[in-house]
């Protein structure tokens, strides 16, 4: 980490509590990011349509349409990294947020350093496409990391940036099992106590896109007790 922040990175925070919003904005601005604020879900969707941010931070409990819905609406238009913020660590909220298309989540009260680390990880992921230029083949699946493109039987598969990064991580160690912890650390920048559900939900989503039969995955397979691996 410790990368220099690209000038002009914009973060949209959707939070109805004015004090939290302001304090988070100050902390994020200290990191050198530009922060745009929205109080209501509807405003957030409108603001994102007018000028898409680089990262979106959504509180789940919002007046009007809730955070899940905001997440779904933004996700329909864009693969921008989305972090859900929840005041509850319930499985229900976390999984619902991830199912709605969030890339990561944070539980209040979070430490701003943790938030900026997550944002950095997402941004890094978002432009991790530079590097190796080789194509990787897994059966009918073809991954071109440098172009951020995945094709299945020649057709382009649309992945979010997190899904793409996850696939590339798995592909970079072909036929080796990567534990959830390792994937969390590499893809999300979490420490060891990250939440394995994050990986599970993303793997599930990834399968619906790259597998011919997502119920019986051939490429992204689960190795019980260990983790996941990608195979031809």
């Amino acid at each position, binding site marked *: 980490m410790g990368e220099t922040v690209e000038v002009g990175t914009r973060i949209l925070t959707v939070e109805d509590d004015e004090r939290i919003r302001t304090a988070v904005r100050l902390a994020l601005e200290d990191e050198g990011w530009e922060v745009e604020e929205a109080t209501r879900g509807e405003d957030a969707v409108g603001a994102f349509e007018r000028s898409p941010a680089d990262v979106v931070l959504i509180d789940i409990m919002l007046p009007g349409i809730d955070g899940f819905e905001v997440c779904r609406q933004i996700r329909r238009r864009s693969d921008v990294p989305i972090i859900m913020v929840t005041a509850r660590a319930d499985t229900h909220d976390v999984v619902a947020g991830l199912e709605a298309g969030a890339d990561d989540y944070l539980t209040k*009260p979070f430490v701003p350093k943790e938030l900026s680390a997550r944002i950095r990880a997402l941004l890094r992921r978002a432009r991790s496409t530079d590097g190796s230029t080789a194509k990787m083949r897994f059966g009918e699946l073809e991954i071109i990391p440098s172009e951020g493109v995945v094709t299945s039987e020649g057709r382009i598969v649309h992945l979010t940036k997190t899904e793409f990064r996850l696939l590339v991580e798995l592909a970079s160690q072909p036929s080796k099992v*990567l*534990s959830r912890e*390792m994937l969390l650390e590499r893809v999300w920048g979490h420490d060891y106590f990250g939440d394995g559900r994050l990986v599970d939900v993303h793997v599930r989503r990834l399968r619906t896109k790259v597998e011919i039969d997502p119920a019986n995955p051939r490429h992204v397979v689960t190795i019980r007790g260990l983790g996941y691996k990608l195979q031809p």
Partner: protein
Amino acid sequence: MNGGAPPTRSRFRPLAQVGLRARITIAFSLGALLVSLILTIASIIIIRQNLLAERERLVAERVAINSTLVADKIGAADVDTQSLFGSLSTAGKPSVIVRSAKAGGDIPISLDTRYGAAVLPASLTARVLDQRVASTIRFERNGEILLAVGAPIPNSTGGYFEINQLGDINKSLSSLLVPLLAAAGVITAIGAGLGWWASRRVLRPLSDITQVAADVAQGRLDSRVAYSEWADDVDLAPLVSAFNDMVAAMQTRIDRDARFASDVSHELRSPLTTFNASLEVLRNGRDEMPERSQLALDLLSSDMERFTQLVEDLLEISRFDAGAVRLELDEVLIVESVEMASRTLSTTPITIESDPSLQGVIITLDKRRLMRVLANFIGNAAKYGDGARLITVMRATHPPIDAPDEEPMDWIQVGVADEGPGVPESERERIFDRFSRGEMGGRRGNDLGVGLGLALAAEHARLQGGSVWVENRNDVISGARFVVELPLIEADDEDSDTWDNDTLGLDEVLVGPSTSEVTSELPVISIAESDPGRAR
């Protein structure tokens, strides 16, 4: 140990071991047995009375006839016994007593001495000879029931008597007794069957309720007894509806508590978020502050960290209290996971000792909770025991601690040992209580921990059916060993729908975490794969 004392159980419960159903059945069969025995005895008595009365009537008729037949013959001076009784038709033993003033008394003439005139009861002979009335008497002699019938002989002073043996009646009665007793047995069995059936009917709502109570205990709060099945039963419907009402009330209450905990959680978390973010902004400008402000900021920072942790722990423990926690079971390579955790959680290296039979074993447990417990133990060791030095992963086999009578089961024990001063005997249970400080509190100095960590560890373990405790290191080095023990449930091959058989190519397993830059230094654990398709 695990906070609450295990319930004491009585080992002696002779009556309690007979279930309600068995007792109902026994009562029914005893009742049936009693009724059928009374019926049997009553019928035997009535039949016997009838048979006797019939016999007496028959004998009396015959005696009346025979007494006239002998009348002619006793006139002669020498009465020949043979000729006297020869012509008579009799089933009994006939006798004649001639009252003769000449001879100075009664002259008995009998065919059979055993059942002769001498045997006749005096009351009978008196009635017949003195009062000249035909009489019947039943009496017992040498254990034999006899019927004696006498009639005055017309135109004489004598009397004619017959003794009948009634043994045949008893014989026929006893042959009747067998089918009657058999019938009693059948009735008893029917009674037992009836009791079994009736008790099932009575107990079915109880077994339904038991099932629902078990469901509720396992967290399925929306489980109810199907009321419609019992609605038309005036006796059972109130029980079922009262039970359902109770569960509903409990569910409402738990939901309310959980909602309250959730509301409180939100109310506490929101300002803390603001605090932390604002504090971060202040810290970013710390260098420009005067020294006094810097000190104040540092105090604020460190206490805010502690306070945040306290709120997190409080909220977590209140979720336990509200019953709002759920297990999330994972399949975990236990030894490898503990190794990983120890590397991440401790800044100093920790020796890991594990039971060789646990290598590569996949266990079903809530990994996050186990890791929280280990994090707490390791953190605790760092604070009070000069750091964790040894982690043991062992197997154990014993019955559940709160049910010592049950079958022994397998357990996994993860122990975190330090080389500190240990925990005095008197403190070993108390330190798992909430906010308990014990003597350790005195040594906390500036680093005032919050006494919820071990209590939470106990809850995490208990939720999985396990327990936590602290003991002295049982090796040469002194120190404390904190142990978490969880049921050892080896993951089943069949129960995972995500399990694929295509792991044959598995040669290396990469287990994080590490930085993505230094891939060559990744901890690599080799798993010997002798059994294809099985990762254990």
